[in-house]
């Protein structure tokens, strides 16, 4: 009861001051008011509500910034210590003892006396760049083509045939042939990974578009004469945002994994990527005392992929409008 009283009586004010008669305004009554809703603000509100997301995002930001800034500050020379036989395959302790304490030596040295710490960050930069560039190209083409593919029945027929055939060409064959024809450089690797990679994303998007395309609200929209482009951008795209973000969460780390895989089977690029580091240090894994040079790139690759994956997944969850309530 107290609550109710306090709602309607204010100290020192008369009823006349508190209440005034409002005219009926037919124009105002036509307006619909709702709480202000901003899609992206809600996405980030939901995303940052989970404390774990802040931690992982911080880790991810640190790793990416470090991978881009650190290698440009140092001058990494892989064969700088090549002639120094006593500098090869050192454990962190021994390396610090030999060279004096500096950040370069905290993970020991590799096969040609190079700093493992410097190597993994140089490698990370290449791998992360590859993943982001490939994902950007594949997602852009894939989403655009997938949307058209999903809408047009004629294109669907043609594209399904293309998909059935191209999807069956062994990926490693395609990549290795392309790498052989050009050169095992960063550019040809990007080309090899994006040459058919977009098709699989397009297929995924096509399926999602077909699912949403024939829903009742779109049928109603079409009956009311909404143009197709408007349906695509206003009715379907918002639905797709969360799907696309979730897909991106899987795609970006998968390129890092794929690069590691290709390098391991000897079909990678010539740049010192994480995959190539792992490939070259494989024999070190079984040699006692040399494990650091093998496990360092493996661990950093895992950290990057897990952080990217978790961030993306949770961002995907947060970008689903149904979680904004």
């Amino acid at each position, binding site marked *: 009861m107290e609550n109710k009283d306090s709602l309607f009586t204010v100290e020192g004010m008369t009823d006349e001051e508190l209440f005034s008669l409002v005219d009926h305004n037919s124009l105002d009554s036509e307006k619909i008011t709702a709480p202000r809703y901003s899609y992206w603000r809600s996405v980030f509100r939901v995303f940052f509500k989970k404390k774990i997301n802040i931690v992982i995002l911080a880790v991810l930001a640190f790793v990416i910034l470090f991978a881009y800034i650190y290698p440009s500050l140092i001058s990494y020379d892989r064969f700088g210590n090549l002639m120094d036989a006593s500098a090869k395959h050192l454990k962190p302790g021994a390396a610090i003892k030999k060279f004096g304490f500096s950040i370069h030596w905290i993970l020991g040295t590799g096969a040609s006396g190079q700093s493992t710490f410097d190597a993994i960050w140089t490698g990370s930069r290449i791998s992360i760049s590859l993943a982001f560039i490939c994902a950007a190209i594949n997602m852009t083409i894939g989403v655009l083509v997938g949307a058209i593919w999903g809408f047009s029945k004629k294109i669907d027929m043609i594209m399904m*045939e293309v998909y*059935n*055939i191209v*999807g*069956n*060409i*062994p990926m*490693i*064959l*395609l990549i*290795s*042939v392309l790498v*052989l*024809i050009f050169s095992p450089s960063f550019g040809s690797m990007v080309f090899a990974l994006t040459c058919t990679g977009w098709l699989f994303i397009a297929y995924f998007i096509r399926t999602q578009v077909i699912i949403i395309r024939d829903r009742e609200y779109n049928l109603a929209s079409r009956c009311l004469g909404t143009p197709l482009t408007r349906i695509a951008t206003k009715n379907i795209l918002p639905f797709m945002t969360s799907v696309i973000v979730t897909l991106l969460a*899987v795609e970006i*780390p998968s390129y*890092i*994994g794929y690069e*590691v*895989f290709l390098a*391991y*089977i*000897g*079909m990678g690029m010539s740049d010192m990527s994480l995959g190539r580091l*792992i490939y070259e240090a494989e024999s070190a*894994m079984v040699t006692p005392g040399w494990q650091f040079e*093998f496990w360092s790139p*493996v*661990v950093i*690759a*895992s950290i990057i*992929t*897990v952080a*990217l*994956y*978790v961030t993306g*997944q949770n961002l995907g969850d947060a970008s689903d409008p149904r979680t904004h309530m």
Partner: protein
Amino acid sequence: MTKYVLKRLLHGLISSFVVVTIVMIMIYTMLDRNLIFATDNVFKNYGNNEKTAYMYRKWEEYGYLDLITYNDYLLDLVDKGELDEETQKKVASIGKKPENDSELTAEYVQKFNDWCAANGYTVTRLNAIMVTPKKYANGGAQQLFAAKDLPVTHRLVKYVTGLISVDNIHFVDEDIDLGKRGLTFTLHDPVYGGDKFAPAIIGNGTYHKYLLYVDKVFPYLHQNLVTINLGKSYAVNAGIDVFDTMTKKQGSYVMSTMTFPTGLTEESADDLHSATFVYGSMAANKVNSDRFTDDYTSVSTYKAGKSKVGYSFTIGIIEVFLVYLFGIPMGILMAKKKDKFVDKLGTAYIVFITAVPSLAYIFLFKAIGGKIGLPTTFDMESTSKLIYVLPIVSLALPAIGNIMKWLRRYMIDQMNSDYVKFARSGGLTEGEIFRKHILKNASIPLVHGIPGQILGALVGAIITERVYTVPGAGNLMTIAINQYDNGVIVGMALFYSLLSVISIIAGDVLISIVDPRISYTGKAR
């Protein structure tokens, strides 16, 4: 339904051949053809002109071009009767340089050149390379031959028509006399001494001696009548067909006492049932003439290990079994305890196994496995079954994560649907709803993948087999690519695409059996 499946199969077959065409165009026209010699040791030993001639011979053997040497041309003329043998011998030896040719030789060389120009061949004449005026350099003898590149279409037609070959009694050249050609059916296989009851069909004039026979190895009844030729290997397993490379047993010889056709009894690993025809081989060496009574002397051997596909499939099929055995209950548990501790733990596992590069966790398993004393390298001679543990675990753990992820997702989707609410309001217990409704509906998309998983076991796994040195089929493609073995690449591409086509169709059929709502024949689609 049958009609629909047949139509799909035909369609799939066509797509597979399109895949093969694309692969062929990629590797035969886009890649440098010199690459095929990268790992050829014979090639390295040849020098100068002989090296070039060897390259052309190999290119002909592997279908790049059609090669005709000057001597072939002359012999052809002799066959046609346009040249007598005496003149042929005279004109056959060409000079060290064109200007050294005798008048008669020069005339026939000119004829050869004209014939080549008329038929689209490109003539190559290599002058002799001399160390001293009298002494040839290594492989420096003069060469004269002509070659014509074969188009990919020609190669494709040849490949497709040669895919399946049926043995017949006219296989051996008609000019060769081997007595009466024909097939004989016997109830007492001579390999077993001729007394034991063992039906067999023996051919004379065929490529294989035994066309049908029984033995003690699964599936007991074997045939050599129909052979599959996926493509001849160059570097991986020189001269052997990919299909044989994949299916032939490996490992050490299994010796047993056996009686050869001549009656000779000896300790041997020879598999007499695999005898194939090699002309003149019986008389060629003492070992063969002691053992065999005809030219069917080329035999393969009994070996202790499994074939490449055998190892991959053994590992793969156990893995598939374990994946469904563990993945399904764990996925159900996660869906049931949504947002509880178990679900969170499972999600953490799924995140780890999907995000971390497969190479990383396979090495992790290898390191852990090695610590607890499991064998980390595969040894065909080992009798211990423990060698299978790590490869199976490395393959199963990520696949289990995948099943858990999708089953949980499908089940949670189903849990929110109206029919579940209706079932609950109808008074069904939660257990019944889960078992009879949710699980049934949620498992349909998973059922679709089962044939793919099983057939995928035949293909093997690239990284796992490499890390644990399993002699399986998974690595064949990557090895072939690394050694530029085009025959193997094409064969494997066809094998992969056929398997994927079949597994998708089998999956579609399977879900239509499991789910009566799915029909491929009705009009309402």
